[in-house]
C-alpha cells in the first residue's frame, strides 16, 4: 500500500510539473479482435493530467443516465471517414455504420489523494472541457467499448491501471474495491464490478428475437436530444451530429422526441414528476423490460410508450421474482411505494433482489426516492 501510494504521488507530481498532455490521438479501425490496451484504439489518450479525446471523436451526454454506483461517465462516438453516417430512428438506437466506436469511461472525483476513496456527489461533465477530461481530481475506473463490426456490435471493457495512464483489456471483468463518500461525507465500501464480456450482453442484447446480439442503448433520439457544452460552444447534440455528418435523417431537434433530463431531486409539478420518473425508468430498466428484452419473461414492459397499466406493473402480481417480492403482492401499488415491489427492488443491494440485476452494488438513493415519490403521488390502490 505504501509503495503504491508513493507511486501514485509521483505520478501526480509528474502530471503537475513537467509533462504536457498528449496530442489528440488518431482513432483506428479495429476490424477484429481486442487489443490488450485501450490506447491502441486511438479514441482516448491519457497523460499530463488529462484524458484527451481522439481526432473527430465526439463527446455526448444523455438526458437521464443509467445509475452505475454514482460513477460519472464520459461518452464518445466516432465513425471512420468514408463509413457514412448513423441512420436516425425515432425510437430505437441509431443504426451506426461498420467501424463505428462508442466509448464510455467510468470515473469518480477523488476524495483527497487516495485513488480508492471516491466521491458519490460528482457532477456530470464538471471535469470535462469539451476536448479533455481533467484527471487531477478524478479516478478513472474503466472504459467500455462498443464497436460495430461487419457481423454486428462487439463489447468489452478496459480497466484503468493505478497509474491512470493506460487501461488494459478486462474480458473477464474485475472487482474494484472502492470507498464511496457521500455528499454528507458518509463513507461506504463499494465492490465496483467491471462486467465481463458475457455480462455486457445481459443489458445490451435489447432484442432477444432478432438474433442481432449486442447493440448500443444510449444513442437514441430521446436521450440525446439536449444541449451539450462542446469546446467553445454549446449546441444541441442531434443538430451537431447531423452537421458533423455523424447522423442522417434526423429532423430538427424541436421535432425529435425528448426525454426529461433528471439528475436528482423530486420535481414539484405532477407532470414534471411523472416525466422524470418515466425517463429514469426508461434508461435504467427498459433495455431489459421491453416486449423484446431479456426481462420480457416477467410481463413487465417499461418503455416510455407503454401505457400505465398492468404490464407497467400496476397492481400486477410478480411472475418469478422469488425473494424480490419483499413480501409484496404487486409491482406498483398506486399511492403506496412501500407496498410496491418496484421500490423495494430499487432500494436493495442483494444480488437476487436488486433491480437492475447488474451494474450496481449500491443503492441509488435519489433514484429510489424519485420513483417512490411518483408512486406515492398517484391516486388509487390495488383491489
Amino acid at each position: 500500500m505504501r509503495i503504491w501510494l508513493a507511486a501514485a504521488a509521483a505520478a501526480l507530481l509528474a502530471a503537475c510539473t513537467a509533462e504536457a498532455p498528449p496530442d489528440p490521438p488518431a482513432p483506428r479501425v479495429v476490424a477484429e479482435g481486442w487489443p490488450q490496451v485501450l490506447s491502441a484504439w486511438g479514441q482516448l489518450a491519457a497523460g499530463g493530467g488529462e484524458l484527451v479525446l481522439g481526432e473527430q471523436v465526439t463527446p455526448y451526454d444523455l438526458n437521464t443516465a443509467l445509475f452505475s454506483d454514482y460513477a460519472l461517465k464520459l461518452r464518445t462516438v466516432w465513425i471512420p471517414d468514408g463509413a457514412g453516417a448513423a441512420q436516425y430512428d425515432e425510437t430505437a438506437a441509431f443504426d451506426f455504420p461498420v467501424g463505428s466506436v462508442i466509448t464510455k469511461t467510468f470515473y469518480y472525483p477523488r476524495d483527497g489523494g487516495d485513488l480508492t476513496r471516491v466521491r458519490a456527489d460528482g457532477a456530470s461533465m464538471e471535469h470535462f472541457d469539451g476536448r479533455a477530461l481533467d484527471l487531477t481530481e478524478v479516478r478513472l475506473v474503466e472504459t467500455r467499448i462498443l464497436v460495430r463490426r461487419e457481423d454486428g456490435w462487439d463489447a468489452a471493457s478496459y480497466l484503468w491501471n493505478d497509474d491512470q495512464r493506460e487501461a488494459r483489456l478486462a474480458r473477464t471483468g474485475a472487482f474494484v474495491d472502492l470507498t464511496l463518500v457521500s455528499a454528507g461525507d458518509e463513507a461506504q465500501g463499494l465492490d465496483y464490478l467491471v462486467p465481463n464480456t458475457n455480462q455486457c450482453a445481459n443489458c445490451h442484447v435489447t432484442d432477444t428475437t432478432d438474433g442481432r446480439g449486442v447493440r448500443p442503448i444510449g444513442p437514441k433520439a430521446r436521450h440525446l436530444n439536449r444541449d451539450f457544452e462542446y469546446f467553445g460552444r454549446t449546441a444541441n447534440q442531434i443538430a451537431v451530429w447531423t452537421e458533423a455528418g455523424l447522423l442522417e435523417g434526423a429532423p430538427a431537434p424541436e421535432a425529435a422526441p425528448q426525454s426529461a433530463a433528471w439528475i436528482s431531486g423530486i420535481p414539484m409539478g405532477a407532470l414534471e414528476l411523472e416525466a422524470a420518473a418515466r425517463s429514469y425508468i426508461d434508461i435504467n430498466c427498459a433495455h431489459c423490460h421491453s416486449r423484446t428484452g431479456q426481462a420480457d419473461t416477467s410481463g413487465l414492459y417499461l418503455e416510455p410508450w407503454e401505457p400505465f397499466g398492468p404490464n407497467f406493473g400496476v397492481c400486477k402480481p410478480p411472475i418469478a421474482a422469488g425473494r424480490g417480492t419483499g413480501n409484496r403482492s404487486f409491482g406498483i401499488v398506486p399511492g403506496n411505494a412501500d407496498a410496491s415491489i418496484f421500490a423495494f427492488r430499487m432500494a436493495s443491494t442483494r444480488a437476487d433482489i436488486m433491480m437492475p440485476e447488474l451494474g450496481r452494488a449500491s443503492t441509488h438513493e435519489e433514484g429510489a426516492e424519485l420513483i417512490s415519490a411518483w408512486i406515492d403521488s398517484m391516486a388509487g390502490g390495488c383491489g
Partner: protein
Amino acid sequence: MDVLRFTIIAAAASGLAACGSEPESRDVSGFDRDYQTTLMELLLDAEPGQVIEIPAGQFIIERGLSLADVDGVTIRGAGADETILSFAEQRQGAEGLLVSGSDDFTIENLAIEDTIGDALKITDGENIVIRGVRVEWTNGPSTENGAYAIYPVQSRNVLIENSIAIGASDAGIYVGQSDEIIVRNNIAEYNVAGIEIENSRNADVYGNIARHNTGGVLVFDMPHLPRAGFGTRVFNNEIYENNTDNFGHAGTPVASVPAGTGMLINAGDGIEVFDNVLRNNRTGHVIISSFFSSGWSDVDTTSDYDPYPESIWIGPNVYEGGGGNPDGLELQALRVAMFGPTGRFPPVIWDGYADSAKMVDGAMPERLRICVEEVEVLNADLPNDASEARLDGDNHRCTLDRLAPVDLGPLAGAR
C-alpha cells in the same frame, strides 16, 4: 372464505418459525478458488459447438456465470456428486449460471450449490438438454434460499432428465413460457414447488419423484404474460409426502400453495394427470383451482387471460392416505365439518369456479370440462364462500380427447 389466500398467512407464520434452527450449508473452506477464472474464460471464449469439460472437484464461484448467444455449447462435469460448483460465497449475479440466446445447449453431470438467487437459468434457447444435474441449497428448505433451481424459460424443445433439485424457495424444476418440453426421471424434494410448468405448451412430465415439497407438481397459468399455456401431461410420477411448510416469499405465486399438496393445477388448461402414485399429501392429492383462489382475486387481469382451469382430465391414479390434515385452519374446519374429526378430503379438490360465459344451457361444453375418473371430488364452492361445499364426483365423469405425446425427436432419444 378464501382458502388459498388464507394459507399465505399460515405460510408466513411457519416461515418465521423455521428461522433460528436451520441446518448449516456445506462447509466450502477446502474448495478450490482458482478454477473459477478458468471457467469464466472458457465461457467467454466458447465457440459454437464447443464442449466445456469441467473436471471432478469442488469449486468456489464468486460471480454469476453466463453464456450468451453461442449455439451448440455443451457444459459437462464428471458427475452430479463429483463436479460441484459452489456459490456459497457468491458476491455478484442474480443467477449462478445464465444461458441466453444459445440454441442446442446441453448441461450435464455436475452440481450447482447454494446460489444467492436462481441457480440455472436458460432463456431464449432451442433444443435445451439438462441431464444429470444436481441443484441444491445445502442448508435444506429455507426462505433464504434462491428462488429457482432449474429454470428454462421462453425456450423450445426442452429436455430435463435424471436431475435433482433440492431446497428452492420457489420451484425446483420450473419451465416457463416454453414449448415442447419433457421433464422425466428427476427428483425434486424440499422445494416450495417441486416441479412447475407455467404458461407453457406441450409438456410431458413423467417418471419423476416429487416428495417433501410444499406442493409436488404444479401447472400454472399466470396473467399479464405474452402467452398462455396449454397441454401438460403428468403421468407415471411418484408424488408423495409433500408436506413441507410453505417457505416461499409472500407475494410469489407459490406462496399460496397449501403445504400437503400433491398436484396443483391453477388456471391451466389442457392438462392430463394419470397413472401417478400420490401418497400421504396431507392437504390433498390433486387440487384444481382458478386464479381467483390464488390470493389475487381482485387483480385486473388482461382481457385475453383465462383464469379458469379447463379441459382437465384426472385419469386413473393410485391414491394412498393424504387429505386428512390440511394446511390452514379454514381447510381444517371444512374437513371436519364435512367428513368428521378423523375424515379425509377425497383425492381431488376443485375450488368450484367455472366460467359462466362459456356455458351452453347452463353446462360447460364437453371439451372444456374437468373430468375425473373413479374417485370422489370435493367441490369446495369457494365462489359462495364454501356454503355449498359438496362431494361432486358424479358431475365429473366425462372424457376428453387425449393429448398427443411430446416428441422431441433425437433430443430425447439419445439415451
